[in-house]
């Protein structure tokens, strides 16, 4: 279906392409006839007929006489020559642009009133634009005499003038400059474009959330992702679109969200590496002036105009204590003054393939069964089988036990085992749990404005049927904004309202209830089949003798009966008032109100195993009377969790920006803001819930109830939880930038943040942070004569960023626990030891950079080198346990990092076929320099599920036991204290860190992308290669302990087939032999040894993008201004990887479960502009 649509679209594109060729070919001639027509009228006719743009100044027209001309199909150049023959004007044609110039006075003729001929001398110079392109036809006027000359094709001119004379250099579409003559060779004279005079040419400026900083005057490190780039890819989430196109921004993969008891505290998005240990690792996100407190997934990417990433201290320190991890500033679209209504409609469909469930090579079902048979023979399951009646065993073990008991024959067993051997649970999982993803995205926006009012309204709708069946996602976004300009543009009032709502149905978590590789989940008719789950089947079949609820677990029914819906509602109201007091001075007041609510409802009906199990577990049967008591009533169980937040942001701001005679430009900004964010989480549970009547039962949460299996007794979980948080911040800030002569810029900023940090004296609640920067546009200097590199700028900044950790306090604090103790009393625990010297974390960053552009921008780019030092980082340090605590969390850690951000843009082809390349190269490596917490044993450091800072290495590093191959009986050997050893427990528990090998960083220190874009007429094609180097991962291998686990552990990897089996195998394999009984430390050693460490390096073809634009100019009668068709293919695949294990380093399989790389997807879309 979708493929058909794709084919149709392609056909349309091709047809349009041919139409366009003929349109272009016929447009180079002019037909015009008229008598005494103003020149302006002729120009309009030329523009209409040729598609060329004519540039002129009004003084040109004043000097010109009306023309009389009559020509038919005359080539453009001939027409123009004829037109200007009797005029004081001339013309230059460049890139479909006709520039009107003054005719040069005849050489050798002295200018009028040139009285001082004796002292005058020829003065030369070259006029270019900021990218070094010569401005042919620029006018150079001698101010004293009003005589002028025109620059030639190379932008060069010679004028007779005296020392000290002032030249006025001007060109259409550019700002005029006055230059005082100091030498006979003026060198290069740069003219800057007018911002509004030339459509399609973007003057870039950076939005810091407080102000727009023109690129030329920036000293800090910024990365900007413009609208074109944001829309290059297709995704629901806007931040996903930054991946691979933003310099200095890493998207970390293989993130372990929360394992065991310890949060590993990784960030998905890391700007310039890492500079905190235990505090917030995430970047600050600003949406239209204020920090965004809502869920980022609710922002509609189609409303986003541009994204600026603030990387160094000078760029981000205006955000003070929140800027330590960098800042992402999202700017949404606004209307424009004096622009008629524009309507833009965008829609796209995405199809993603079904995930490859066989990506992770499992051991075969036959092998797995062989192991179960082996273990059964060894008596491994005896204690489980003979112990309590309910402990779970696998079907194979049950079958073997039945055979021993004589209830089944050997033939029956063989037959059944053969059936199992040929089954792979992934077949059913793939069939019932996974599907192709199907995603749709629609958006429409209206914008425009008159001289007093500009507006932008938009609506968006997303609908996603993700790879997991029974799940879906819907999002509706509405946005409306107005800007009113009042009282001669002295007052500007901004209003903006955004409303986002999404519904997530998460009925399928991807887990299917069994780890046995040979289970079937459905019969031939698609009916759900039971799998062993928690209890033994023979137990659940007979327990309660029919008085209990069905206790069997059928994964497919669980999927079908699941109901887990989250409704996310989020809205923001922005009000702004700006008043221009005098020229350059503005006072503004900004207010934002945000409110969000996430409402999660998990309803486990009586049909679900969860509810049946809860009811059964608490049931008691009086066997004398046969009566059954059910402390948990029959009916569903509803879990409801609500998260609400409300935030108020107020900002008062004074800005002053002005340029003064003599080339001084000054911007000053000062203000204060107050932020208040209140959040409340509450959850509760209802038992015996009936959705049709919304009724439930009162419960006894105090008494202990003996469980049906009689193994223990417990209270009925109430799941009642309430927590409120309040984060208040008051900030004062100021910054200033001063530029002299467009060559030298200095910037500085200072900010103080105060917050309601708990239990701190008021004078310690704040932190002052500052930054300073300087930039030098050396290419603007008179002595600069490197013609091939007309743009060269140096930048240097230094300053402090901060980070917030509301989790620590200065006084002894206690936390009330959510649950009461077993006697029903409230309990509290001491959560924070007294820490009177608690301080805020600080990150110092020095940034050194070069910006450059060669002539015609053939090669342009920037190179930034930075050094970061994080001090006073909140980290634990060990404490004598006799004090009552084992660790003390305070400002005890330090880190440093350095890195390089390189962006290079090249224009490789400029003709009809254009070819651009953007090359991003990033290097970022951090190192823990001070960390006092006890190192413990080396075994702990081999686990990647823990935050294991180790001084001298990156925060996230891979450490391994030293591997010395297999011995002659297949046992793995380690190097312990310089000798080979098989003392696995002592290897694991060793505290000698020489026995631990540092393999390298887990996150790639080198990463980047190469994006090639080709355009040919209205066709555009681009593809993106991404690369990561210098990182390491550990591949999974066979874990016999998991394999042996009685409940039927995860099947293990196909490495089982490569295990040591006979002497001599040690020469060709690293997989240890299977042994019984098991030493878990032996497994642990092998799995965490250097033998399984792989290099992560790779090059990936990330995506392809193709678009075709049709405009009204090309197709007359087209009902739209522009139509864009686009196709975007994502996750195409690896081109090269360093490892030979078939593992995509961004998707490293874990030892259990299903891991798979993001499936390939293709999106097709259409964008209409009216």
């Amino acid at each position, binding site marked *: 279906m979708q493929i058909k649509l794709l084919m149709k679209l392609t056909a349309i594109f091709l047809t349009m392409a041919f139409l366009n060729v003929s349109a272009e070919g016929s447009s180079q001639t002019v037909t015009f006839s008229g008598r005494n027509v103003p020149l302006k009228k002729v120009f309009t006719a030329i523009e209409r007929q040729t598609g060329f743009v004519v540039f002129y100044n009004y003084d040109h027209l004043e000097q010109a006489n009306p023309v009389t001309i009559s020509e038919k199909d005359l080539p453009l150049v001939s027409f123009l020559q004829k037109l200007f023959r009797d005029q004081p004007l001339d013309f230059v044609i460049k890139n479909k642009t006709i520039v009107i110039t003054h005719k040069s006075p005849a050489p050798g003729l002295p200018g009028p009133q040139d009285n001082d001929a004796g002292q005058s001398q020829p003065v030369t110079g070259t006029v270019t634009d900021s990218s070094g392109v010569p401005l042919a036809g620029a006018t150079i006027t001698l101010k004293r005499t009003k005589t002028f000359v025109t620059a030639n094709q190379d932008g060069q001119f010679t004028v007779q003038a005296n020392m000290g004379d002032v030249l006025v250099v001007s060109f259409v579409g550019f700002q005029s400059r006055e230059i005082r003559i100091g030498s006979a060779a003026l060198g290069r004279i740069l003219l800057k474009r007018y911002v509004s005079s030339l459509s399609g040419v973007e003057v870039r400026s950076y939005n810091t959330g407080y102000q727009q900083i023109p690129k030329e005057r920036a000293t800090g490190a910024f990365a900007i992702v413009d609208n074109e780039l944001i829309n290059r890819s297709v995704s629901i989430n806007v931040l996903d679109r930054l991946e691979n196109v933003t310099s200095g921004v890493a998207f970390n993969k293989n993130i372990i969200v929360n394992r065991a008891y310890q949060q590993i505290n990784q960030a998905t998005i890391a700007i310039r590496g890492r500079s905190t240990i235990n505090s917030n690792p995430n970047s600050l996100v600003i949406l239209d002036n204020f920090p965004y407190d809502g869920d980022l997934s609710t922002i509609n990417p189609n409303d986003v105009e541009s994204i600026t990433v603030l990387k160094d201290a000078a760029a981000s320190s205006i955000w003070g204590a929140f800027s330590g991890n960098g800042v992402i500033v999202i700017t949404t679209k606004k209307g424009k003054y004096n622009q008629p209504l524009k309507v833009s409609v965008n829609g796209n469909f995405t199809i993603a393939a079904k995930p490859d469930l066989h990506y992770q090579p499992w051991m075969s079902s036959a092998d797995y069964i062989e192991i179960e048979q082996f273990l059964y023979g060894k008596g491994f399951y005896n*204690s489980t089988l003979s112990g309590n009646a309910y402990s779970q065993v696998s079907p194979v073990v049950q079958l073997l036990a039945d055979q021993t008991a004589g209830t089944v024959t050997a033939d029956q067993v063989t037959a059944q085992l053969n059936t199992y051997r040929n089954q792979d649970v992934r077949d059913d999982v793939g069939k019932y749990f996974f599907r192709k993803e199907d995603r749709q995205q629609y958006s429409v926006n209206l914008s425009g404005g008159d001289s007093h009012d500009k507006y932008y309204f938009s609506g968006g709708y997303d609908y996603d049927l993700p790879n997991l069946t029974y799940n879906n996602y819907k999002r509706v976004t509405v946005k409306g904004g107005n800007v009113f300009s009042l009282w001669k543009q002295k007052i500007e009032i901004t209003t903006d309202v955004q409303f986002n709502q999404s519904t997530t149905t998460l009925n399928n978590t991807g887990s299917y209830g069994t780890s046995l590789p040979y289970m079937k989940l459905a019969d031939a008719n698609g009916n759900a089949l039971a799998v062993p789950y928690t209890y033994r089947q023979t137990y659940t079949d007979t327990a309660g003798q029919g008085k209990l609820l069905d206790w069997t677990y059928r994964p497919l029914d669980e999927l079908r009966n699941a109901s887990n819906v989250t409704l996310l509602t989020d809205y923001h109201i922005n009000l702004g008032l700006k008043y221009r007091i005098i020229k350059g001075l503005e006072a503004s*007041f900004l207010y934002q109100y945000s409110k969000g609510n996430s409402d999660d409802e998990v309803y486990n009906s009586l049909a679900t195993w969860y509810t049946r199990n809860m009811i059964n577990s608490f049931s008691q049967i009086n066997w004398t009377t046969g009566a059954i008591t059910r402390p948990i009533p029959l009916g569903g169980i509803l879990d409801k969790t609500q998260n609400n937040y409300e935030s108020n942001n107020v900002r008062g701001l004074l800005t002053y920006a002005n340029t003064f005679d003599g080339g001084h430009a000054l911007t000053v900004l000062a203000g204060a803001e107050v932020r208040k964010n209140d959040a409340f989480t509450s959850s509760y549970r209802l038992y015996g819930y009936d959705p049709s009547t919304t009724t439930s039962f009162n419960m006894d949460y105090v008494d202990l109830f003996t469980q049906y299996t009689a193994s223990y007794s417990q209270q009925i979980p109430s799941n009642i939880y309430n927590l409120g948080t309040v984060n208040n911040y008051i900030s004062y800030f100021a910054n200033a930038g001063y530029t002299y002569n467009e060559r030298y810029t200095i910037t500085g900023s200072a900010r103080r943040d105060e917050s309601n940090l708990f239990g701190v004296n008021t004078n310690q*609640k704040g932190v002052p942070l500052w930054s300073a920067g300087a930039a030098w546009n050396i290419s603007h200097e008179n002595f600069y004569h490197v013609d091939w590199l007309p743009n060269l700028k140096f930048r240097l900044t230094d300053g402090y960023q901060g980070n917030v950790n509301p989790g620590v306090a200065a006084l002894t604090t206690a936390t009330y626990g959510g649950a009461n103790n077993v006697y029903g009393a409230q309990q509290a*625990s001491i959560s924070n030891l007294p820490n009177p010297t608690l301080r805020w974390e600080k990150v110092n960053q020095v940034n050194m950079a070069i910006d450059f552009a060669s002539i015609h921008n053939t090669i342009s780019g920037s190179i930034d080198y930075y050094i970061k030092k994080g001090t006073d980082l909140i980290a634990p340090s060990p404490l004598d*346990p006799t004090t009552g605590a084992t660790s003390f969390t305070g400002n005890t850690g330090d880190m440093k990092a350095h890195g390089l951000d390189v962006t290079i843009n090249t224009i490789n082809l400029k003709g009809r076929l254009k070819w651009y390349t953007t090359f991003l190269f990033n290097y970022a490596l951090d190192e823990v320099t001070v960390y006092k917490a006890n190192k413990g044993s080396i075994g702990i450091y081999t686990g990647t599920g823990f935050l294991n800072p180790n001084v001298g290495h990156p925060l996230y590093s891979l450490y391994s036991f030293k591997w010395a191959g297999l011995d002659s009986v297949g046992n793995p050997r380690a190097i312990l204290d310089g000798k080979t050893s098989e003392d696995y427990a002592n290897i694991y528990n060793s505290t000698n860190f020489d026995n631990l090998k540092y393999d390298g960083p887990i996150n790639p220190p080198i990463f980047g992308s190469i994006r090639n874009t080709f355009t040919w007429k209205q066709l555009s094609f681009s593809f993106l290669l991404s690369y990561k180097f210098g990182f390491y991962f550990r591949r999974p291998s066979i874990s016999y302990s998991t394999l042996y686990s009685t409940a039927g552990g995860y099947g293990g990897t196909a490495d089982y087939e490569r295990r040591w089996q006979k002497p001599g195998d040690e020469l060709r394999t690293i997989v240890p032999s299977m042994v019984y009984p098991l030493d878990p430390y032996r497994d642990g050693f092998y799995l965490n040894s250097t033998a399984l460490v792989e290099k992560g390096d790779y090059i990936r073809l990330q995506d392809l993008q193709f678009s075709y634009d049709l405009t009204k100019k090309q197709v007359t009668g087209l009902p739209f201004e522009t139509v864009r068709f686009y196709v975007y293919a994502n996750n195409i695949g690896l081109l090269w990887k360093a490892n030979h294990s078939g593992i995509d380093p961004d998707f490293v399989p874990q030892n259990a479960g299903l891991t798979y790389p993001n499936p390939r997807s293709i999106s097709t879309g259409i964008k209409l502009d009216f």
Partner: protein
Amino acid sequence: MEKIINRYNYSWLFLLCATLMTASCRKEALLNAKPSTSLVIPSSIQDFQAILDATLTMNVTPSLGEASADNYYLTDTKFQSAQPVVQNTYLWAKDIFGASTNIDDWNYPYEQVFNANVVLEGLAKMQATASNQQDINTLTGYALFYRAYAFFNVAQVFAPPYDSTTASSDLGIPLRLSSDITAPSIRATVKDTYAQIIDDLNRACKLTPTALPTANRNRPSRPAVYACLARVYQSMRAYKEAGAAADSALQLYSSLIDYNTVAVATLPFKNNNAETIFQSNFSSYAQTLIPVIGIAIIDSNLYRSYAANDLRLSLYFRVVSGVPGPRGGYSGSLFTFSGLATDELYLIRAESYARAGQASLAMADLNTLLSKRFTTGTFIPYTATDAADALQQILAERRKELELRGGLRWMDLRRLNKEGYNITLTRVVNGQTYTLPPNSPLYTLPIPPDVITLSGITQNAR
């Protein structure tokens, strides 16, 4: 026109300033707001009670003593699969912990001491009024009890047994009497250690309520203070004082459970059962040392010493595949009970009588207890020929009644060997026999290595 603009300029500036000033007025309120509703600076009676009611911290006791004692044994297979710390403890190795850190047996009691000190200091800062004086007293008594109980439990494992001849020179345990984490840890003498424990208990005695909180048996009370004092004095071999304290406790609370009324179940007793005076358990970590189910096997001689009509056989033990293993005791959970109960008090008082030569009083107490332990109608009261015979019977019954009960067997081994009982423990693992001779320095366990490293206190000689 120019003037008008200027006037507006100033009014705008004024407005801006006014906004900022309003903000600064609210500044204090904003900056003093509590960042999380669950967070408190403990300062109220309710806060302090909640800290002391955190049962998973405050009612946990060490278990390495019990793990070192002879109520149980491990098969070779179970020994192999045990953690190194368990193996070392089981075999009375010189070094037990190796590189292991965060040893619960040390850390939990000292966390209790810290919490008790936080509460004591907080209560001392409170403004006493007519309405809260009673609560302040009660909680002060509670905190003193917790501190004494923790000190005592640590001393049973990590300090040498009390010996009045050497106590003033033997190294005891660090006595931390304030919550200041920067104060150094210094080992007090055994004499000072016990003096501190008794002093805390005596102070607690006057402050705690006389009635047992029957709904919250995790909380101390005056009977609990006396019961603890009885145990402390008994460990010091001050039997007269032990008997007097046990008597004082029994005067206030003396309920016994008739085991005929208890149904055999996985967990026959509840955590609020009538005999419990103060509830505490081995830590969950310690469960790996003496797991209730399936791993530890009850010493064969001990198991055989119960008569067939002794109800404790079925209520204390669970036979799986012919091997007797322990149940959960008075905790009502998988955790092993280690708290204070009336049965122990009867035995302490009986022992005190016997040692004072009062055989009949001693046997009366013993029979009061045992009459509740046998199938109805089958119990024949025990008789003793003399006080020495009574003592032997009481000690034998004490071991049977208090098996796997919070390290009491370990405490008994330490004190009785001091009196010449000459009990030698043996273990056989993989055919090799290990022995623990009486009064060996191995009866004092090594202090966890992380504590030694970070505090610099002296390690026990073993």
